[in-house]
């Protein structure tokens, strides 16, 4: 299918588009972000600074960007998909050569006054590129090995560049997010069996490379993996983060220790309490009620988006929504699994809740694309 098949007469135009926004999604996004504001206020010891206030401003900016993205016609996004993917790749290469180092990794590129994190941008462009690729590709060729390989390359090249920074979490999200789109496009399941097998191979390779010259991960990342496998090995060292996170989470109980009463967060036992580990703070202070309600909200967002994907008859739009929502799902699932001790500690933030600018903006762009697909979906004449 192509955009030429759109029934343009039934497309809302101009300000009327506002009425066709996915309003339930917007409400859910604001609710989730609200959780974030409350928690950031709490971990700062009851102050808006240094986290809650900037986060609110960013979310506001994110909403504006989301609306702008939403109002752009879907075919505009399809037409720039290839270009944006190439730009993102170039930026990632730029990071490789000119990036600024921060916290042991090269992630940022400074262009004039702007600091950009190309790995975040790559999440969107990869999904866009894959959606456009499968929109373009003849349905019969979808499961053809050569065409599958092309799709895999689209996802893996940026993931590899990100892994080199190194940023294991984002690289995994890129690869898995790409996988979601490929799966949604209807590629034969056998490829996924092969993928899982090769992932296992990759894990082996990563572990085997440890201690050699071409070691793929940083030492601290290996220690985190060790700590995941057995957090009690070294409770004050590598296992410290996950142990303290689990203590915080578990001590919340049914209804939590109360707003701003979480001792683990307030006394700094929790590392990264405002970013990657913010979920444990929530679980500590608001207990099972607070934590499971956030999980529920996330699932509702996923559900709402899936509904949009299913109702979108155009292939590009549907795949795009699947890609965005897949990425979003991976975000919170990996983060929660990590703080609950079910996954190794990789730097994946809790979407919309963790403090951080780039991830927030990219997510809002992603949801803007979901809205765009929602608004510009083909409709039956009424």
């Amino acid at each position, binding site marked *: 299918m192509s955009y030429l098949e759109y029934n343009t007469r039934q497309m809302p135009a101009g300000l009327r588009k506002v009425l066709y926004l996915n309003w339930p999604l917007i409400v859910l996004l604001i609710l989730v972000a609200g959780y974030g504001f409350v928690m950031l206020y709490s971990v700062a010891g009851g102050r808006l600074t240094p986290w809650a206030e900037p986060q609110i401003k960013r979310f506001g900016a994110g909403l504006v960007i989301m609306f702008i993205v939403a109002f752009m016609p879907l075919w505009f996004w399809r037409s720039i998909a290839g270009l944006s993917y190439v730009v993102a790749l170039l930026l990632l290469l730029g990071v490789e050569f000119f990036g600024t180092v921060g916290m042991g990794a090269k992630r940022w590129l400074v262009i004039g006054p702007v600091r950009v994190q190309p790995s975040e941008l790559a999440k969107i462009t990869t999904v866009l590129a894959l959606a456009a690729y499968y929109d373009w590709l003849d349905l019969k060729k979808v499961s053809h090995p050569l065409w599958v390989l092309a799709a895999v390359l689209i996802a893996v090249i940026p993931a590899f560049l990100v892994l080199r920074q190194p940023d294991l979490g984002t690289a995994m999200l890129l690869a898995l997010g790409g996988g979601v789109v490929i799966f949604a496009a209807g590629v034969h399941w056998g490829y996924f069996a092969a993928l899982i097998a090769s992932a296992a191979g990759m894990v082996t390779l990563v572990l085997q490379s440890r201690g050699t010259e071409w070691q793929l991960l940083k030492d601290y990342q290996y220690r985190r993996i060790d700590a995941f496998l057995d957090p009690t090995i070294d409770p004050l060292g590598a296992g410290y983060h996950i142990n303290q996170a689990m*203590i915080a989470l578990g001590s919340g*109980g049914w209804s939590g220790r109360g707003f701003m009463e979480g001792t*683990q967060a307030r*006394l700094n036992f929790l590392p990264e309490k405002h970013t990657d580990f913010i979920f444990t703070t929530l679980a500590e202070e608001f207990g099972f009620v607070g934590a499971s309600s956030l999980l529920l909200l996330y699932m509702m967002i996923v559900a709402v988006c899936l509904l949009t994907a299913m109702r979108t008859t155009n292939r590009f739009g549907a795949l795009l929504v699947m890609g965005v929502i897949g990425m979003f799902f991976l975000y919170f699932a990996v983060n929660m699994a990590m703080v609950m001790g079910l996954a190794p500690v990789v730097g994946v933030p809790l979407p919309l809740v963790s403090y951080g600018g780039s991830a927030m903006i990219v997510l809002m762009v992603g949801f803007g694309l979901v809205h765009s697909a929602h608004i510009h979906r083909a409709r039956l004449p009424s």
Partner: protein
Amino acid sequence: MGVAGALLWRLRDMQLEQSEQFRLLAEENRINLRLLPPTRGLILDRNGVLLAGNEQNYRVVIKRDDAGDIDLVLGRLAKLIALTEDEIERARRDMLRNRPFVPVTVAERLSWEEISRVASNAPALPGVTPEMGLSRNYPLRDDTAHVVGYVGPVSERDLEALETPDPVLLIPRFQIGKVGVERLAEDRLRGRAGSQRVEVNAVGRVMRELDRVEGTPGANVHLTIDATLQNYALERLHGHSAAAVVMDTANGDILALASAPSFDPNLFVRGISRADFNELLENKHRPLVNKTVQGMYPPGSTFKMVTALAALEAGVTDGRESVFCPGHMDVSGHRFHCWKRGGHGRVGLVSALSESCDVYFYEMSQRCGIDRINAMSSRLGLGIRYDLPITSVAGGLNPTREWKRANRNAEWQVGDTINASIGQGFVLSTPLQLAVMTARLATNTAVLPRLIRDPLERSEVHAASLDLRPEWLRMIRQGMDQTVNDRRGTAYSSRVVAEGQRMAGKTGTSQVFSISRAERDAGIRRQQDLPWNRRNHALFVNYAPFDTPRIAVSVVVEHGMGGSSTAAPIGRDIMLAALNDGRPPLSAYPAPQRNRVQHEQQELEQRLRRPEDMRISRA
């Protein structure tokens, strides 16, 4: 959906099923129990004068994580307060050894000026804070060092010695009694620790106090010592290596226990420097030894009352018979000399005591034997280890036949008895024992020494009677009276002329080494010609007033050469001080001596502590 379900299940499992366990872990994380050291009890003299107290101690502590560049900060600090290289090095080492937020003490006992300088330069000294705490202080310094002792940091050995050490001992820098009353009355003085629960953050910094249970401060200990008299006695011994004990004859209260030279116990609390410690160790007058209870000396002629009473009780003499003293006595081929080469002629018990004739006691000891002498010696309080709350109390020695067999691997000889009869040979006594003996002779009661008294105690101690026949004691006391007050007495020059303060006593000069033939040939005939450590010990025991005895005094001057010449004048001065509120009145001395005594008193007065220096504690 499956993933979400798994997440939810895990969440439920951790938050609802295992919540208690995690809550406990979280509490363990954040709550620290800290002990609050109790305030140590005071040690006071019989009038409430503070002997050991707690003083405000200004100190400077530094935290590594706040200081940043510790060398820079320590360097700046050294410009403001006097810091030795050692102190700087120790502070640096402590800082690097501890976690960065642990405050490390750089300097203690700073003056207010120094602390002010540090405080006003605070902006240039990150991580440095002036603090205030309590530390042990002995305001009378040397005066009571041997009695009160001192405290010091808890050592490994201290902990091992205890079965269940009080957890308070594990507080860093906590101090316990090491020597003297501080050590023996540790349990009363220490008190009970309080506790404090604090909330700490991840790096261990205290965020707030959750609750606190106050401890119980240690109880005060009241000594029988009279600080004024103690000071007088110690200063009167100044220049000698000597000991003096002053005892209340009625209840055994030790009013003064002076061992000269003394030392400043405050040095030990602060951590004595190697140089200072070596100086104390190498001093030939042994300042660290408490000679009053630790020093064991041949009692010499002060022992003669024991021999006399043993003979009287054995019925081998009535005391009135005379013995002829030709200046020596030959026993089994060995000649025993009297100190008076020319002999005393005919002497009875009273004059044998007052003129200290040796031959009389040689004779009596052969008649009654060593066993009776030992029995009397014990009865009068010699050779007994008294249970006083001070360290290293020695028992002295009443040598028995068994003792000699066990320790010298030889049978007891008649000569041993003869030597023992005049307090030589194997007999050893401590100055404290000699004071007890004197008090017992003066009162005919088995008075026991005591050092701690309960200020609330009303009833007086009544010691059991010694059951010595009054007529025997009358003769002994007459002998002691004539020693001091008869023209021919050995201590006549140390008599007291004040009304109601008549003093009785007995001199002793005990041989440490006899002058060898080689020395005699080399022309050494007088004690002054001998090196200090070979000279005779000088002893004097006395009590007063003669008719109604209140005070007993013993004085031992190591290598003081002569009991009459060295020990007796000291014994008189201390006795007069004890009878007259700490200062001997000039009128108590015989008129011809007053000029000289006045001169000595003026000199002594310079060194004596003034009443205003003695802080009365109302606690």
